[in-house]
């Protein structure tokens, strides 16, 4: 079984108001050194396919990430028990 973890993050320069709100809260809690907080998504899945990597790339381009505002990275772990 192949486990895939896909990280979707906002591109640099794209405003992240949610990250900004979290940053303000952390600063309020006293974590003064925290800055440039960005919020992304983690999408996990199991795939049964011969070429998992090729499939993951296409899935990200087609649906999981929006190329206008987001970047994606992924990790593939072979032989993971579900």
């Amino acid at each position: 079984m192949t486990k895939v973890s896909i990280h979707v993050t906002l591109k640099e320069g794209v405003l992240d108001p949610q990250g900004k709100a979290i940053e303000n809260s952390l600063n309020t809690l006293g974590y003064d050194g925290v800055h440039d907080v960005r919020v992304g998504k983690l999408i996990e899945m199991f795939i049964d396919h011969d070429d998992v990597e090729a499939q993951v790339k296409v899935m990200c381009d087609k649906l999981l990430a929006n190329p206008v505002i987001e970047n994606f990275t992924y990790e593939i772990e072979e032989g993971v028990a579900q």
Partner: protein
Amino acid sequence: MKFAVIVFPGSNCDRDMYHAAKDALGAEAELVWYQDAALEGYDAILIPGGFSYGDYLRCGAIASTSDIVTSLRREAEKGTPILGVCNGFQILLESGLLPGALIRNENLKFICHFEELVVNNNETLFTTDYEKNDVISIPVAHGEGNYYCDDETLNELIEHNQIVFTYKNNPNGSVRDIAGIVNKEGNVLGMMPHPERAAEMLLGSDDGLKMFTSMLKNWRDQYATNA
């Protein structure tokens, strides 16, 4: 003239859109469930606002993978007028029928009030009944209406006069105050504000009705030319 109003699971402005086309304008209109993926035979297609698929993943992303969007692409290529409002605009962007993306409002709030829009381009088939630079009052109701695109896309939008509506007082952080854009071909328009909610004075404004009368007039002109 016959309008189709596409209904996705989670659409909630479909009946308002239907009412605007059918009663406020007086044209024919039909609600089309997204699984009945046939869009042939309509003179214009309206994609209403709402929260298709609960805004899962990204607003409009799941709807953009449905079969009816394949039919929508075909109609767009044929030149059929397509108007997407709010979630309808998000679906058009996610489908790649319009450039750019919509992200969370700058102030993170869901905003719901009348906004003043400037008609930046009155030469589209959706806006000929307005004068250029007309200021119209149309309600907005969204949490993710902050239009974003890169500089290259923005320059193209400006160069081809694709920015149709801008906000007078930008409520959401949109690039260049953009409220609505049209494709290069001029037959696909997406906008965050809701013209169908301002289609008769009973609703507080009928400034949105001219979008529908423009579409009707342009359809008639085209019909007369082809006849």
